[in-house]
Protein backbone atom coordinates (compact mmCIF):
# COMPACT_ATOMS: atom_id res chain seq x y z
CA UNK A 1 0.00 0.00 0.00
CA UNK A 2 2.71 2.44 1.00
CA UNK A 3 4.66 1.52 -2.10
CA UNK A 4 1.57 2.20 -4.19
CA UNK A 5 1.16 5.59 -2.54
CA UNK A 6 4.74 6.60 -3.16
CA UNK A 7 4.43 5.58 -6.79
CA UNK A 8 1.29 7.69 -7.16
CA UNK A 9 2.87 10.65 -5.42
CA UNK A 10 5.84 10.46 -7.74
CA UNK A 11 3.52 10.55 -10.74
CA UNK A 12 1.72 13.57 -9.34
CA UNK A 13 4.98 15.49 -8.95
CA UNK A 14 5.86 14.68 -12.54
CA UNK A 15 2.43 15.87 -13.68
CA UNK A 16 3.02 19.15 -11.86
CA UNK A 17 6.38 19.57 -13.56
CA UNK A 18 4.84 18.85 -16.96
CA UNK A 19 1.99 21.29 -16.36
CA UNK A 20 4.28 24.10 -15.28
CA UNK A 21 6.76 23.38 -18.04
CA UNK A 22 4.08 23.52 -20.70
CA UNK A 23 2.39 26.60 -19.27
CA UNK A 24 5.67 28.36 -18.44
CA UNK A 25 3.78 29.28 -15.30
CA UNK A 26 2.94 28.05 -11.83
CA UNK A 27 4.56 27.70 -8.43
CA UNK A 28 6.40 24.37 -8.52
CA UNK A 29 8.13 24.34 -5.10
CA UNK A 30 4.98 25.47 -3.26
CA UNK A 31 3.07 22.73 -5.07
CA UNK A 32 5.69 20.09 -4.25
CA UNK A 33 5.52 20.78 -0.53
CA UNK A 34 1.80 19.90 -0.36
CA UNK A 35 1.66 16.84 -2.64
CA UNK A 36 1.54 14.23 0.14
CA UNK A 37 -0.95 16.34 2.11
CA UNK A 38 -3.38 16.75 -0.78
CA UNK A 39 -2.92 13.15 -1.88
CA UNK A 40 -3.72 11.87 1.62
CA UNK A 41 -6.75 14.13 1.93
CA UNK A 42 -8.27 13.12 -1.40
CA UNK A 43 -7.45 9.48 -0.76
CA UNK A 44 -9.19 9.43 2.60
CA UNK A 45 -11.87 12.12 2.69
CA UNK A 46 -15.40 10.85 3.32
CA UNK A 47 -18.20 11.78 0.89
CA UNK A 48 -19.40 14.52 3.26
CA UNK A 49 -15.96 16.02 3.77
CA UNK A 50 -14.89 19.07 1.79
CA UNK A 51 -11.54 20.65 1.04
CA UNK A 52 -10.38 24.25 0.63
CA UNK A 53 -6.92 25.16 -0.67
CA UNK A 54 -6.17 28.43 1.07
CA UNK A 55 -2.62 28.67 -0.31
CA UNK A 56 -4.01 28.95 -3.83
CA UNK A 57 -0.63 29.24 -5.53
CA UNK A 58 -0.31 25.46 -5.11
CA UNK A 59 -3.14 25.07 -7.64
CA UNK A 60 -1.01 22.84 -9.90
CA UNK A 61 -0.75 20.30 -7.06
CA UNK A 62 -4.49 20.44 -6.45
CA UNK A 63 -5.36 19.88 -10.12
CA UNK A 64 -2.82 17.06 -10.48
CA UNK A 65 -4.24 15.34 -7.38
CA UNK A 66 -7.83 15.80 -8.57
CA UNK A 67 -6.87 14.25 -11.90
CA UNK A 68 -5.12 11.37 -10.17
CA UNK A 69 -8.30 10.52 -8.30
CA UNK A 70 -10.39 10.84 -11.44
CA UNK A 71 -12.22 13.97 -10.32
CA UNK A 72 -10.81 15.88 -13.26
CA UNK A 73 -10.09 14.63 -16.75
CA UNK A 74 -6.35 14.11 -17.09
CA UNK A 75 -6.34 15.74 -20.52
CA UNK A 76 -7.50 18.96 -18.89
CA UNK A 77 -4.19 19.23 -17.03
CA UNK A 78 -2.60 20.16 -20.34
CA UNK A 79 -4.66 23.35 -20.37
CA UNK A 80 -3.16 24.61 -17.10
CA UNK A 81 -2.96 28.42 -17.19
CA UNK A 82 -4.13 28.64 -20.81
CA UNK A 83 -6.33 31.62 -21.67
CA UNK A 84 -9.61 29.69 -21.77
CA UNK A 85 -8.74 26.97 -19.26
CA UNK A 86 -10.69 26.25 -16.08
CA UNK A 87 -7.37 25.55 -14.39
CA UNK A 88 -5.53 28.73 -13.55
CA UNK A 89 -2.46 29.77 -11.63
CA UNK A 90 -4.81 30.07 -8.68
CA UNK A 91 -7.93 27.95 -8.39
CA UNK A 92 -11.34 29.32 -9.30
CA UNK A 93 -14.49 27.95 -7.73
CA UNK A 94 -16.61 25.48 -9.60
CA UNK A 95 -19.25 23.62 -7.66
CA UNK A 96 -18.52 20.10 -6.48
CA UNK A 97 -14.88 20.29 -7.48
CA UNK A 98 -13.15 23.48 -6.36
CA UNK A 99 -14.86 24.79 -3.24
CA UNK A 100 -13.62 28.36 -3.45
CA UNK A 101 -11.53 30.73 -5.52
CA UNK A 102 -8.33 31.50 -3.67
CA UNK A 103 -5.02 33.15 -4.38
CA UNK A 104 -4.91 36.19 -2.17
CA UNK A 105 -3.51 34.79 1.07
CA UNK A 106 -5.57 34.61 4.22
CA UNK A 107 -8.93 34.18 2.44
CA UNK A 108 -9.45 30.44 2.03
CA UNK A 109 -9.11 29.65 5.71
CA UNK A 110 -11.95 31.90 6.93
CA UNK A 111 -14.06 30.77 3.96
CA UNK A 112 -13.47 27.17 5.07
CA UNK A 113 -14.44 28.18 8.60
CA UNK A 114 -17.63 29.71 7.19
CA UNK A 115 -18.37 26.45 5.43
CA UNK A 116 -17.72 24.55 8.66
CA UNK A 117 -20.17 26.88 10.41
CA UNK A 118 -22.75 26.30 7.65
CA UNK A 119 -22.43 22.55 8.25
CA UNK A 120 -23.15 23.10 11.94
CA UNK A 121 -26.15 25.29 11.14
CA UNK A 122 -27.52 22.78 8.64
CA UNK A 123 -26.54 19.87 10.88
CA UNK A 124 -24.63 18.24 8.05
CA UNK A 125 -22.08 15.53 8.81
CA UNK A 126 -18.49 15.60 7.61
CA UNK A 127 -15.42 17.67 8.18
CA UNK A 128 -13.95 20.69 6.42
CA UNK A 129 -10.25 20.48 5.60
CA UNK A 130 -8.16 23.49 4.71
CA UNK A 131 -4.51 23.76 3.71
CA UNK A 132 -2.84 26.98 4.78
CA UNK A 133 0.76 27.96 4.02
CA UNK A 134 3.00 28.90 6.92
CA UNK A 135 3.88 32.13 5.12
CA UNK A 136 0.17 32.73 4.86
CA UNK A 137 -0.04 32.82 8.66
CA UNK A 138 1.49 36.30 8.41
CA UNK A 139 -2.00 37.43 7.46
CA UNK A 140 -4.13 38.76 10.32
CA UNK A 141 -7.24 37.10 8.93
CA UNK A 142 -5.68 33.70 9.73
CA UNK A 143 -5.62 34.57 13.42
CA UNK A 144 -9.03 36.20 13.30
CA UNK A 145 -10.25 32.87 12.00
CA UNK A 146 -8.30 30.86 14.58
CA UNK A 147 -10.07 32.94 17.21
CA UNK A 148 -13.51 32.55 15.59
CA UNK A 149 -13.12 28.79 15.22
CA UNK A 150 -12.77 28.40 18.96
CA UNK A 151 -15.64 30.79 19.68
CA UNK A 152 -17.91 29.11 17.16
CA UNK A 153 -16.90 25.64 18.38
CA UNK A 154 -15.95 24.48 14.91
CA UNK A 155 -14.94 20.96 15.87
CA UNK A 156 -15.54 19.96 12.24
CA UNK A 157 -12.75 22.22 10.97
CA UNK A 158 -9.29 20.83 10.25
CA UNK A 159 -6.46 23.16 9.31
CA UNK A 160 -3.30 21.70 7.84
CA UNK A 161 -0.42 24.16 7.91
CA UNK A 162 2.11 23.46 5.19
CA UNK A 163 5.18 24.49 7.13
CA UNK A 164 7.75 24.74 4.35
CA UNK A 165 9.51 27.76 5.84
CA UNK A 166 9.15 29.70 2.62
CA UNK A 167 8.68 32.91 4.56
CA UNK A 168 12.04 32.53 6.28
CA UNK A 169 13.45 35.67 4.66
CA UNK A 170 10.66 37.81 6.09
CA UNK A 171 9.00 36.42 9.16
CA UNK A 172 9.93 32.95 10.30
CA UNK A 173 6.95 30.93 11.44
CA UNK A 174 7.80 30.22 15.03
CA UNK A 175 5.77 27.89 17.23
CA UNK A 176 2.70 27.80 15.01
CA UNK A 177 1.42 24.80 16.96
CA UNK A 178 1.70 26.66 20.26
CA UNK A 179 -0.08 29.65 18.78
CA UNK A 180 -3.00 27.55 17.57
CA UNK A 181 -3.11 25.72 20.89
CA UNK A 182 -3.27 29.06 22.67
CA UNK A 183 -6.22 29.96 20.41
CA UNK A 184 -8.08 26.90 21.68
CA UNK A 185 -7.23 24.39 18.97
CA UNK A 186 -6.10 20.80 19.34
CA UNK A 187 -2.76 20.54 17.54
CA UNK A 188 -0.40 17.91 16.18
CA UNK A 189 2.91 18.11 14.37
CA UNK A 190 3.65 15.67 11.59
CA UNK A 191 6.12 14.96 8.82
CA UNK A 192 4.24 16.39 5.87
CA UNK A 193 5.94 14.12 3.36
CA UNK A 194 4.98 10.89 5.08
CA UNK A 195 1.58 9.93 3.75
CA UNK A 196 0.97 7.09 6.19
CA UNK A 197 1.73 9.40 9.13
CA UNK A 198 -0.55 12.04 7.64
CA UNK A 199 -3.26 9.46 7.15
CA UNK A 200 -3.08 8.43 10.77
CA UNK A 201 -3.03 11.92 12.21
CA UNK A 202 -5.84 13.24 10.00
CA UNK A 203 -8.15 10.25 9.72
CA UNK A 204 -7.67 8.12 12.80
CA UNK A 205 -11.02 7.37 14.42
CA UNK A 206 -9.91 9.18 17.58
CA UNK A 207 -9.47 12.55 15.82
CA UNK A 208 -12.88 12.42 14.20
CA UNK A 209 -14.43 12.80 17.62
CA UNK A 210 -12.48 15.99 18.39
CA UNK A 211 -14.54 18.56 20.20
CA UNK A 212 -12.16 21.36 19.25
CA UNK A 213 -11.00 22.68 15.90
CA UNK A 214 -7.95 20.70 14.85
CA UNK A 215 -4.68 22.04 13.47
CA UNK A 216 -2.01 19.79 12.01
CA UNK A 217 1.37 21.39 11.42
CA UNK A 218 2.92 19.50 8.55
CA UNK A 219 6.68 19.99 8.37
CA UNK A 220 7.55 20.05 4.71
CA UNK A 221 10.32 20.98 2.34
CA UNK A 222 9.62 23.54 -0.31
CA UNK A 223 10.45 21.97 -3.67
CA UNK A 224 10.50 18.49 -2.10
CA UNK A 225 11.94 15.89 -4.43
CA UNK A 226 14.13 18.13 -6.58
CA UNK A 227 17.36 18.98 -4.82
CA UNK A 228 18.01 22.11 -6.88
CA UNK A 229 14.65 23.55 -5.83
CA UNK A 230 15.08 22.49 -2.23
CA UNK A 231 18.46 24.23 -2.13
CA UNK A 232 17.33 27.39 -3.87
CA UNK A 233 13.63 27.66 -3.11
CA UNK A 234 13.48 31.43 -3.53
CA UNK A 235 14.86 31.40 -7.08
CA UNK A 236 12.38 28.65 -7.96
CA UNK A 237 9.32 30.10 -6.20
CA UNK A 238 7.66 31.28 -9.40
CA UNK A 239 9.78 29.76 -12.15
CA UNK A 240 9.12 26.96 -14.56
CA UNK A 241 11.78 24.53 -15.73
CA UNK A 242 13.52 24.62 -19.13
CA UNK A 243 13.45 21.44 -21.23
CA UNK A 244 16.82 20.24 -19.99
CA UNK A 245 15.85 20.97 -16.38
CA UNK A 246 12.59 19.17 -16.90
CA UNK A 247 14.35 16.03 -18.06
CA UNK A 248 16.85 16.21 -15.22
CA UNK A 249 14.21 16.80 -12.55
CA UNK A 250 12.01 13.98 -13.83
CA UNK A 251 14.93 11.61 -13.70
CA UNK A 252 15.73 12.70 -10.16
CA UNK A 253 12.14 12.22 -9.06
CA UNK A 254 11.96 8.75 -10.56
CA UNK A 255 15.19 7.71 -8.89
CA UNK A 256 14.93 9.11 -5.43
CA UNK A 257 11.36 9.20 -4.28
Amino acid at each position, binding site marked *: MEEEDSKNIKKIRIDILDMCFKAKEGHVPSSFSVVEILYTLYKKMAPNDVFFLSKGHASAALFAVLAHFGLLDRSELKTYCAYDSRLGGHP*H*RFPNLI*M*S*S*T*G*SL*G*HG*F*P*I*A*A*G*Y*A*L*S*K*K*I*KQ*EPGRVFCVVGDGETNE*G*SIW*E*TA*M*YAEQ*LKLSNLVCVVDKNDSQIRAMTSINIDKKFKEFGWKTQVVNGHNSSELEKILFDKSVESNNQPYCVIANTVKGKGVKEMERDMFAWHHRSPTDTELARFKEELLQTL
Partner: protein
Amino acid sequence: MRKQFAKTLLDLGKDERLVLLIGDISHYLLKDFEDKYKDRFYNMGVAEQAMMSIASGLAINGLFPVVHSITPFVVERCFEQIKDDLCYQNLGVNIVSVGGAFDYAALGCTHHCYEDFALMRVLPNMQVIYPASPHEFDILFRQTFANGSPTYFRLPAKIHFLPTKPNFGDVEKLKEGKEVTVVAAGPQLQNAYDAIQELEKESITCDLIYMTTLKPVSEAAKAAITASLKKTKRLLTIEEHSVIGGVGDTVALIASNISFGHHRLGIKDKFLTNYGTYEEHCEANGLTKSGIKKAIYEIKSENNL
Protein backbone atom coordinates in the same frame (compact mmCIF):
# COMPACT_ATOMS: atom_id res chain seq x y z
CA MET B 1 -34.11 52.51 9.41
CA ARG B 2 -32.30 50.24 11.81
CA LYS B 3 -35.57 49.34 13.47
CA GLN B 4 -37.03 48.37 10.14
CA PHE B 5 -33.91 46.32 9.43
CA ALA B 6 -34.50 44.41 12.69
CA LYS B 7 -38.20 44.01 11.91
CA THR B 8 -37.70 42.78 8.35
CA LEU B 9 -34.97 40.37 9.42
CA LEU B 10 -37.09 39.01 12.25
CA ASP B 11 -39.83 38.22 9.78
CA LEU B 12 -37.51 36.78 7.13
CA GLY B 13 -35.77 34.69 9.79
CA LYS B 14 -38.42 32.04 9.21
CA ASP B 15 -36.39 31.19 6.12
CA GLU B 16 -33.88 28.72 7.53
CA ARG B 17 -31.22 29.80 5.07
CA LEU B 18 -30.96 33.32 6.50
CA VAL B 19 -27.97 33.81 8.82
CA LEU B 20 -27.17 37.10 10.54
CA LEU B 21 -23.58 38.11 11.33
CA ILE B 22 -23.08 41.37 13.19
CA GLY B 23 -19.88 43.29 13.85
CA ASP B 24 -20.76 44.01 17.46
CA ILE B 25 -23.44 46.64 16.74
CA SER B 26 -27.26 46.78 16.93
CA HIS B 27 -27.38 44.08 19.63
CA TYR B 28 -30.47 45.42 21.37
CA LEU B 29 -32.38 45.96 18.16
CA LEU B 30 -31.63 42.45 17.01
CA LYS B 31 -32.30 40.79 20.35
CA ASP B 32 -35.58 39.30 19.17
CA PHE B 33 -33.90 37.73 16.18
CA GLU B 34 -31.14 36.38 18.41
CA ASP B 35 -33.65 34.88 20.85
CA LYS B 36 -35.78 33.34 18.15
CA TYR B 37 -33.02 32.08 15.85
CA LYS B 38 -30.12 31.44 18.18
CA ASP B 39 -28.24 29.14 15.84
CA ARG B 40 -28.45 31.67 12.98
CA PHE B 41 -27.29 34.76 14.84
CA TYR B 42 -23.60 35.44 15.43
CA ASN B 43 -22.04 38.48 16.98
CA MET B 44 -18.65 38.29 15.31
CA GLY B 45 -17.02 41.10 17.26
CA VAL B 46 -14.59 43.30 15.40
CA ALA B 47 -12.72 41.10 12.94
CA GLU B 48 -14.33 42.25 9.71
CA GLN B 49 -11.99 40.54 7.26
CA ALA B 50 -12.58 37.02 8.56
CA MET B 51 -16.26 37.84 9.15
CA MET B 52 -16.73 38.66 5.47
CA SER B 53 -14.91 35.51 4.31
CA ILE B 54 -16.91 33.40 6.75
CA ALA B 55 -20.06 34.85 5.17
CA SER B 56 -18.70 33.69 1.82
CA GLY B 57 -18.23 30.17 3.20
CA LEU B 58 -21.82 30.17 4.45
CA ALA B 59 -23.08 31.24 1.03
CA ILE B 60 -21.06 28.54 -0.73
CA ASN B 61 -23.14 26.01 1.20
CA GLY B 62 -26.42 27.61 0.14
CA LEU B 63 -27.15 29.93 3.07
CA PHE B 64 -28.15 33.62 2.80
CA PRO B 65 -25.79 35.53 5.09
CA VAL B 66 -26.47 39.10 6.16
CA VAL B 67 -23.40 40.96 7.42
CA HIS B 68 -24.13 44.07 9.42
CA SER B 69 -21.72 46.68 10.74
CA ILE B 70 -20.57 50.28 10.41
CA THR B 71 -19.87 51.44 6.87
CA PRO B 72 -16.08 52.04 6.87
CA PHE B 73 -15.42 48.78 8.68
CA VAL B 74 -17.74 46.54 6.70
CA VAL B 75 -16.88 48.08 3.32
CA GLU B 76 -13.36 49.44 3.42
CA ARG B 77 -11.61 47.34 6.05
CA CYS B 78 -12.51 44.15 4.21
CA PHE B 79 -12.68 45.44 0.65
CA GLU B 80 -10.50 42.69 -0.78
CA GLN B 81 -12.59 40.03 0.94
CA ILE B 82 -15.67 41.54 -0.71
CA LYS B 83 -13.90 41.55 -4.07
CA ASP B 84 -12.44 38.02 -4.00
CA ASP B 85 -14.76 36.08 -1.71
CA LEU B 86 -18.12 37.61 -2.65
CA CYS B 87 -17.99 39.31 -6.04
CA TYR B 88 -15.43 37.22 -7.96
CA GLN B 89 -17.31 34.08 -6.91
CA ASN B 90 -20.71 35.76 -7.25
CA LEU B 91 -22.00 34.62 -3.88
CA GLY B 92 -25.22 35.98 -2.41
CA VAL B 93 -23.93 37.67 0.73
CA ASN B 94 -25.91 40.72 1.85
CA ILE B 95 -23.96 43.57 3.44
CA VAL B 96 -26.07 46.02 5.41
CA SER B 97 -24.18 49.04 6.68
CA VAL B 98 -25.08 51.94 8.92
CA GLY B 99 -23.07 55.11 9.38
CA GLY B 100 -22.56 55.91 5.71
CA ALA B 101 -21.42 59.39 4.64
CA PHE B 102 -21.22 61.61 7.76
CA ASP B 103 -24.01 60.05 9.80
CA TYR B 104 -21.46 59.73 12.63
CA ALA B 105 -20.56 63.38 12.13
CA ALA B 106 -18.97 64.05 15.52
CA LEU B 107 -16.83 60.91 15.44
CA GLY B 108 -14.65 62.22 12.64
CA CYS B 109 -13.24 60.94 9.39
CA THR B 110 -12.35 57.42 10.54
CA HIS B 111 -16.06 56.89 11.12
CA HIS B 112 -17.27 58.66 8.00
CA CYS B 113 -17.64 56.88 4.70
CA TYR B 114 -18.60 58.75 1.56
CA GLU B 115 -16.75 56.31 -0.71
CA ASP B 116 -18.91 53.22 -0.21
CA PHE B 117 -20.97 53.49 -3.41
CA ALA B 118 -17.86 54.11 -5.50
CA LEU B 119 -16.13 51.08 -4.01
CA MET B 120 -19.12 48.78 -4.26
CA ARG B 121 -20.24 49.91 -7.72
CA VAL B 122 -16.87 49.20 -9.28
CA LEU B 123 -16.98 45.52 -8.31
CA PRO B 124 -18.54 43.23 -10.95
CA ASN B 125 -21.63 41.30 -9.73
CA MET B 126 -22.24 43.64 -6.80
CA GLN B 127 -25.74 45.07 -6.38
CA VAL B 128 -25.85 48.48 -4.68
CA ILE B 129 -29.03 49.59 -2.94
CA TYR B 130 -29.72 52.80 -1.03
CA PRO B 131 -33.11 52.87 0.69
CA ALA B 132 -33.94 56.03 2.62
CA SER B 133 -37.25 55.20 4.24
CA PRO B 134 -38.19 52.11 6.27
CA HIS B 135 -40.72 50.82 3.76
CA GLU B 136 -38.09 51.07 1.03
CA PHE B 137 -35.67 48.86 2.92
CA ASP B 138 -38.40 46.31 3.56
CA ILE B 139 -39.39 46.14 -0.11
CA LEU B 140 -35.89 46.16 -1.59
CA PHE B 141 -34.41 43.70 0.89
CA ARG B 142 -37.19 41.19 0.33
CA GLN B 143 -36.72 41.55 -3.42
CA THR B 144 -33.00 40.86 -3.34
CA PHE B 145 -31.68 39.04 -0.28
CA ALA B 146 -32.07 35.59 -1.81
CA ASN B 147 -31.29 36.39 -5.45
CA GLY B 148 -27.84 34.82 -5.32
CA SER B 149 -25.68 37.88 -5.98
CA PRO B 150 -23.74 39.97 -3.47
CA THR B 151 -25.71 43.02 -2.39
CA TYR B 152 -24.71 46.16 -0.54
CA PHE B 153 -27.27 48.21 1.40
CA ARG B 154 -26.46 51.55 2.99
CA LEU B 155 -28.99 52.42 5.69
CA PRO B 156 -28.96 56.17 6.38
CA ALA B 157 -29.73 57.53 9.84
CA LYS B 158 -32.08 60.20 8.42
CA ILE B 159 -35.05 59.35 6.26
CA HIS B 160 -37.42 61.11 3.88
CA PHE B 161 -41.20 61.11 4.32
CA LEU B 162 -42.42 60.66 0.78
CA PRO B 163 -44.71 57.79 -0.19
CA THR B 164 -42.36 56.16 -2.67
CA LYS B 165 -42.83 52.85 -4.47
CA PRO B 166 -39.36 51.45 -5.02
CA ASN B 167 -38.61 48.48 -7.20
CA PHE B 168 -35.19 46.86 -7.45
CA GLY B 169 -33.24 48.27 -10.40
CA ASP B 170 -35.79 50.92 -11.26
CA VAL B 171 -35.98 54.66 -10.68
CA GLU B 172 -39.09 56.57 -9.71
CA LYS B 173 -40.20 59.86 -11.23
CA LEU B 174 -41.69 62.02 -8.52
CA LYS B 175 -41.94 65.36 -10.32
CA GLU B 176 -42.57 66.24 -13.92
CA GLY B 177 -40.94 69.39 -15.27
CA LYS B 178 -39.12 71.04 -18.13
CA GLU B 179 -35.96 72.75 -17.11
CA VAL B 180 -33.66 70.56 -15.11
CA THR B 181 -33.41 66.83 -14.49
CA VAL B 182 -32.79 66.30 -10.80
CA VAL B 183 -31.64 62.84 -9.78
CA ALA B 184 -31.61 62.39 -6.02
CA ALA B 185 -30.77 59.49 -3.77
CA GLY B 186 -30.98 58.90 -0.04
CA PRO B 187 -32.61 61.17 2.52
CA GLN B 188 -31.74 64.20 0.35
CA LEU B 189 -34.83 63.26 -1.64
CA GLN B 190 -36.81 65.24 0.90
CA ASN B 191 -34.80 68.43 0.32
CA ALA B 192 -34.90 67.93 -3.43
CA TYR B 193 -38.66 67.45 -3.41
CA ASP B 194 -39.26 70.47 -1.19
CA ALA B 195 -36.89 72.66 -3.21
CA ILE B 196 -38.56 71.74 -6.50
CA GLN B 197 -41.99 72.30 -4.97
CA GLU B 198 -40.98 75.85 -4.00
CA LEU B 199 -39.41 76.56 -7.38
CA GLU B 200 -42.67 75.61 -9.06
CA LYS B 201 -44.17 78.75 -7.52
CA GLU B 202 -41.54 80.69 -9.48
CA SER B 203 -42.52 78.77 -12.62
CA ILE B 204 -39.30 76.78 -12.64
CA THR B 205 -40.16 73.12 -13.15
CA CYS B 206 -37.92 70.10 -12.87
CA ASP B 207 -38.06 66.37 -13.42
CA LEU B 208 -37.32 64.69 -10.12
CA ILE B 209 -35.99 61.18 -10.48
CA TYR B 210 -35.41 59.15 -7.33
CA MET B 211 -32.82 56.41 -7.36
CA THR B 212 -32.78 53.59 -4.80
CA THR B 213 -30.74 51.10 -6.83
CA LEU B 214 -27.35 52.37 -7.98
CA LYS B 215 -26.53 49.03 -9.55
CA PRO B 216 -27.82 47.34 -11.58
CA VAL B 217 -29.90 49.99 -13.35
CA SER B 218 -32.79 48.52 -15.30
CA GLU B 219 -33.41 49.26 -18.96
CA ALA B 220 -36.59 51.08 -17.97
CA ALA B 221 -34.64 53.27 -15.57
CA LYS B 222 -32.02 54.02 -18.20
CA ALA B 223 -34.75 54.97 -20.65
CA ALA B 224 -36.45 57.25 -18.13
CA ILE B 225 -33.20 59.06 -17.30
CA THR B 226 -32.17 59.39 -20.95
CA ALA B 227 -35.59 60.70 -22.01
CA SER B 228 -35.56 63.30 -19.28
CA LEU B 229 -32.04 64.50 -20.14
CA LYS B 230 -32.86 64.74 -23.82
CA LYS B 231 -35.68 67.04 -22.83
CA THR B 232 -33.92 69.24 -20.24
CA LYS B 233 -30.23 68.93 -21.22
CA ARG B 234 -29.46 69.89 -17.66
CA LEU B 235 -28.65 67.48 -14.86
CA LEU B 236 -28.31 67.96 -11.15
CA THR B 237 -27.35 64.92 -9.09
CA ILE B 238 -27.71 64.99 -5.31
CA GLU B 239 -26.12 62.51 -2.93
CA GLU B 240 -24.54 62.18 0.49
CA HIS B 241 -21.45 60.68 -1.09
CA SER B 242 -18.29 61.79 -2.83
CA VAL B 243 -18.98 63.41 -6.19
CA ILE B 244 -16.63 60.70 -7.49
CA GLY B 245 -18.11 57.30 -8.17
CA GLY B 246 -21.61 57.57 -6.73
CA VAL B 247 -24.99 58.66 -8.06
CA GLY B 248 -23.49 61.38 -10.28
CA ASP B 249 -21.28 58.89 -12.05
CA THR B 250 -24.05 56.29 -12.24
CA VAL B 251 -26.26 58.74 -14.15
CA ALA B 252 -23.38 60.08 -16.27
CA LEU B 253 -22.53 56.53 -17.35
CA ILE B 254 -26.13 55.78 -18.34
CA ALA B 255 -26.41 58.92 -20.44
CA SER B 256 -22.86 59.02 -21.79
CA ASN B 257 -23.97 59.21 -25.42
CA ILE B 258 -26.04 62.38 -25.09
CA SER B 259 -24.97 65.94 -24.27
CA PHE B 260 -26.04 67.73 -21.13
CA GLY B 261 -24.65 70.02 -18.47
CA HIS B 262 -24.04 68.25 -15.18
CA HIS B 263 -23.86 69.74 -11.69
CA ARG B 264 -23.00 67.42 -8.82
CA LEU B 265 -24.14 68.15 -5.31
CA GLY B 266 -22.23 65.91 -2.97
CA ILE B 267 -18.98 65.80 -1.10
CA LYS B 268 -16.09 67.30 -3.04
CA ASP B 269 -12.81 65.44 -3.23
CA LYS B 270 -11.81 66.12 0.37
CA PHE B 271 -12.07 64.76 3.91
CA LEU B 272 -14.72 66.38 6.08
CA THR B 273 -12.41 67.15 8.97
CA ASN B 274 -15.05 68.95 11.03
CA TYR B 275 -17.10 67.27 13.76
CA GLY B 276 -20.48 68.65 14.88
CA THR B 277 -23.79 67.28 13.63
CA TYR B 278 -25.21 65.68 10.51
CA GLU B 279 -27.12 68.89 9.82
CA GLU B 280 -23.99 71.01 10.03
CA HIS B 281 -22.24 68.80 7.52
CA CYS B 282 -25.25 68.99 5.18
CA GLU B 283 -25.17 72.77 5.49
CA ALA B 284 -21.42 72.93 4.75
CA ASN B 285 -21.80 70.79 1.62
CA GLY B 286 -24.88 72.42 0.12
CA LEU B 287 -27.01 69.39 0.90
CA THR B 288 -30.03 71.41 2.01
CA LYS B 289 -33.21 72.67 0.45
CA SER B 290 -31.66 76.11 -0.14
CA GLY B 291 -28.42 74.53 -1.41
CA ILE B 292 -30.43 72.56 -3.95
CA LYS B 293 -32.41 75.62 -5.04
CA LYS B 294 -29.18 77.54 -5.50
CA ALA B 295 -27.74 74.72 -7.62
CA ILE B 296 -30.86 74.65 -9.79
CA TYR B 297 -30.69 78.44 -10.32
CA GLU B 298 -27.06 78.10 -11.32
CA ILE B 299 -27.49 75.28 -13.77
CA LYS B 300 -30.54 76.98 -15.27
CA SER B 301 -28.64 80.20 -15.83
CA GLU B 302 -25.97 78.40 -17.82
CA ASN B 303 -26.38 78.17 -21.53
CA ASN B 304 -26.44 74.47 -22.07
CA LEU B 305 -26.04 73.31 -25.61
